[in-house]
């Protein structure tokens, strides 16, 4: 089946605690693309991601993934999720973690080894996750999502703590997979990564302030530097709100 958009969000409102964290988000994420989700700390990136994988209680609005309501049973086989803090078992080895997550999808040891190799952890496969470096640990967490070969991968800051070479490898892999039809939603703090996305969502205080290609964002802000473009868009927004 071919979906024009893999993820559809409409009128999404989320309250956390007493705060309104997402305030009417509308966006659609094209299938087979790499979409970057950017925004300042606390702007609601993780919350939007949680709504898309169906673990966030939402106040209003709908989230549809591959034509089905977010979080519904069939999607649990096809949507991979990597949480912001690495969610792997610290008291298991990388290999044991990958094999366990593989088993949840009825997959075996070969798939686990492939996923470990994909994130460059083969030489650390026997090591306990608790003894890995921060960057290795988040790659172990990524491996546990790649293992199921999902159609949609939702990654919350997967490249934090990685060196430039590894980051480059990971992004190349994301594009390689997206070329084969996998849809990516990747949140990030790092602006130089924004340029590697097919599309960008810029979120600020729970509102979407840009949903465009990197070129489109640059043109709208009238600057070639994405970081400067974001700052300009955010400032313009603040002036509009203040006025």
């Amino acid at each position, binding site marked *: 089946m071919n979906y024009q958009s893999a993820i559809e969000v409409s009128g999404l409102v989320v309250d*956390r*605690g007493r705060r309104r964290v997402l305030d009417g988000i509308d966006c659609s994420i094209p299938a087979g693309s790499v979409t970057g989700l950017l925004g300042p700390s606390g702007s609601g990136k993780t919350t939007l991601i*949680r709504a898309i*994988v*169906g*673990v*966030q*209680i939402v106040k209003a609005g709908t989230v549809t993934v591959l034509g089905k309501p977010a*979080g519904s*049973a069939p999607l*649990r*086989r096809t*949507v991979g*999720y*990597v*949480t912001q*803090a*690495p*969610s*792997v*078992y*610290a*008291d*298991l080895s990388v290999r*044991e973690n990958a094999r*366990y*997550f593989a*088993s*949840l*999808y*009825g997959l075996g040891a070969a798939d686990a080894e492939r996923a470990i190799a994909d994130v460059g952890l083969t030489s650390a496969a026997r090591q*306990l996750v608790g003894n890995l470096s921060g960057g290795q640990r988040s790659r172990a967490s990524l491996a*546990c999502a790649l293992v*199921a070969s999902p159609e949609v991968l939702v990654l919350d800051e997967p490249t934090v703590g990685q060196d430039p070479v590894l980051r480059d490898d990971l992004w190349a892999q994301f594009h390689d997979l997206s070329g084969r039809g996998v849809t990516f939603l990747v949140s990030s703090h790092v602006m130089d990564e924004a340029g590697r996305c097919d599309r960008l969502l810029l979120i600020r205080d729970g509102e979407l302030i840009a949903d465009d290609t990197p070129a489109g964002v640059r043109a709208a802000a009238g600057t070639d530097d994405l970081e400067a473009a974001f700052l300009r868009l955010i400032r313009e927004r603040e002036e509009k709100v203040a006025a």
Partner: protein
Amino acid sequence: MSVGITLSTSGRIVRQLRHDRRTVALLIVVPALLLAVLYYMYEDAPGAFDRIALTMLGIFPFVIMFLVTSIAMLRERTTGTLERLLTTPLGKVDLLFGYGIAFSVAAAVQGAVATGVAYWLLGLDTAGSAGLVLLIAVVDAVLGVALGLLCSAFARTEFQAVQFLPVVVVPQILLCGLFVPREAMSGWLQAIADVLPLTYAVDALLEVGKSAEATATMWRDVIIVAGAAVLALVLAAATLRRRTP
């Protein structure tokens, strides 16, 4: 529910335990050591040791598995692995039964060591067989696991989880017939004891102490304890939410 996922989840939990050698050592050695302490406490009153040691063989696995499980499940929640698991094909029941099975295996090892020490080193004497004592100890451990899973749903921190021990476990120990035989308690205390599952585990153990053959009362007690464990697991599944605030 999927049998494959349940079993691989239990396998994963057992593997986690195996990497934690110190916990394994504590799990296995501590009950046996405590039984030895009891043995010397009651050196001059051999009948009392038989009754108390027998009761303790049911209480140890219950308390220890309750604690270990509530902490393990809470860790699953706070490290984000639970949130992630709930976005995979794993069913809530798979996870909870996975815990139940893994810790029953641990309890069986622990119970076998404690029972072996009690009978062969400390001279515990019961009319019924040690095998039945072990069976009851394991069922009791499963009850501890199930209540631990249920309680961990109401705790946000390790401190809170540990506080469920005095709330959920201690009253059951006080009223189960260890300190005062149930018949000697006042009516309202007996009524409370009658709805606490540990009471039935202890009752079953005392039956094994008294009768050479397994009695109908013993089987009834075992079934009640197992039923309470399944009920707690089902309630734990019902309180486990995929979506959180």
